[in-house]
């Protein structure tokens, strides 16, 4: 059985990779994938602790995270597609009209 510390450490690494990915990439599709990695790191932590504590609540949270992430992807991809239809380019810094 893999020790808890290793799993949480892996999750931390995945989360950090995802966070850096969101911050440095300019293509919204790639940013989305990076954000998915952050979601999954969180889900992994839940599952790991659930197994460690012999409790089901963490696994339930993992399912909720998967469901929420799916919904978020659905909306996000729709927005990205419609932005692409308008501009025929994908660059997050160009979509910056909404400002004070």
């Amino acid at each position, binding site marked *: 059985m893999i020790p808890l510390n290793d799993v949480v450490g892996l999750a931390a690494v995945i989360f950090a990779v995802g*966070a850096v990915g*969101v*911050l440095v990439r*300019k293509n919204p599709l790639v940013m989305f994938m990076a954000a998915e990695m952050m979601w999954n790191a969180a889900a992994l932590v839940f599952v790991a602790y659930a197994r460690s504590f012999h409790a089901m609540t963490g696994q339930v949270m993992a399912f909720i995270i998967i469901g929420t992430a799916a919904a978020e992807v659905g909306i996000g991809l729709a927005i990205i597609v419609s932005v692409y239809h308008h501009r025929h380019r994908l660059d*997050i*810094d160009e*979509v*910056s*009209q*909404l*400002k*004070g």
Partner: protein
Amino acid sequence: MQGLVEILVLPLLGAATITAFKGLMPKKLPGIWASLLVAVSFLLSILADRRVATLSGSHHVITGVLWNWVTGFGAAIHFRLYLDPLSAVWLLIITGVGALIHIYSIGYMHDDAGQPRFFAYLNFFIFSMLLLVLAGNLIVLLIGWALVGLASYLLIGFWYERPTAVAAAKKAFVMNTLGDVGILLGLALLYIHYHGVGYPHLFQAFSQAKPGSAFFEWSAFLLYVGAMAKSAQFPLHMWLADAMEGPTPVSALIHAATMVTAGVYLMTRLYPLLRLAPITHELIGAIGAFTAIFAASVAFFQQDIKKVLAYSTLSQLGYMFLGIGVSAYTASVFHFMTHAFFKACLFLAAGSVIHGLSGEQDLGQMGGLARKMPWTMASFLAATLAISGIPPFSGYFSKEAILGQAYNSGHYFLWGIGVFTAGMTAFYMFRLFFLTFLGKPRNQKLHDHAHEAPLVMTIPVVILGVLAVVGGAFGGWLNGWLKPAFALYPGAAHAALESGPLFGTIVTVALAVVAFIVAFLLYVRRDTAPKAGTEQAPGHWMLHAWGMDLVWMAIVVNPLKLVGQAMGAVERTILAGVTGLAAGVQSWATDLAPIQTGYVRRYALSIMVGGVALLAYYLIRIGFIS
């Protein structure tokens, strides 16, 4: 309850249907429909009164609760209707005279574009007035009281394109609101003390109370302030003269026959309270007598046919309150009844004259109309004889009953004022009659075009004229009819009609006859102009109602205006502070706005940095990082 709700609801139904469907109705229908409903209401009132008459025992009351209105805190307040012999008299006059005036209005308003609106208002007024007299407690009475004020406002300002009419309506409403406040405070006092404002409850309490405490004086006085405003007693009287801006049937119905006598109704209804408040009781009589002679003096030199009648109404209301002040309750109700007949007749006849002269109201343009309008002239003459107190016309009996009781109860000074005023009344009423119907025409062109009113107008006038002649015969009936209403509670021994000393009657009638002769000599033999006597000091002041409007402006209106302006300045200062606060917040927000750059990655970085900072803070706090 049997039948009371129908009496009340029918006029309201008329007002609602005419308002809702006036676009669909043919031109003449609103008037006919409104008159029909009030006439049916009159028949139902007769039936209800017959039921009251057949009740056995000393308690001639039909009463019932429509619904429980205010429950849950303190004593419950019911929406209660209450019919006893006193409200029965009012019921008959309101619906009976009201129906006649509705029928008259069909002719008077036939070419007015606002005719449906007029009849809707008129029916609404009848409903409100019936609610006032059928109320079973003071709160329901106050609702009716306020609604008749509203109806009066709407009808005085009926021709709203005239600035004078709008101003008069506003004046009437404001002055009446003053009275409403008085009633509200008075009934609040009674409610706090007795935990209820229903009549039976209050009468029960009054019959066990000892007279003379300040509590009774104040509650009676506050309720009297309400009656004072509604019945135009001095010093709250000026609105009634201005109210003549409304159409003439309105003046006849509201400002002569019914609404202005609501104060008389309230005072006679609450007479057990008056007997507990001797100072207020005396005050009512004194103010009544003063109003009578004051208004009679103002009526002497008025130039407008309706203004003379308005001030004579004031004067007669003064008589009614004089009667209340000397405990002549039955006599006051009797005078209310005969006054409703002869004054409605006078106003409607004056309306026919105005109608025949195509809207002219100035006495200086009239004269010699007797041949042109014989029926109107005959009715006007009958009503004039009645108001002047010439026997055997109706006014003689009721006025004599009030004056007789004033003398019998030892109020010799008030009696003297009343007798003198009776002479003045005869003078100005015959001056009005002579100037309108006799003498030479002062405007030949108008005179040539003058014509008798159509039948729909003449018949109600003649009916009221006949009632003005024979109305005195109701006195004996009224005496027996009202006995249960006034004899139910102790201390009402003098409520019934009494006759005064013979010499008093002789003096009164002699004064009236002398006044008649003087008026005849002045205005028929010597053909004095209506304007004569108004240039010099007393006549000038009488014409302008002794300057009471100016006094009110100086004492009440202008100080209140100053207070209002001061309050306005204070408010503007406070509002300036509020505005400054808002401006500060706005400029702060403008300074912060550039933070929202629109770059999503910058937001993500900010969130991330914040999250890391929070994490670091907690890690340091638990000692993970040192």
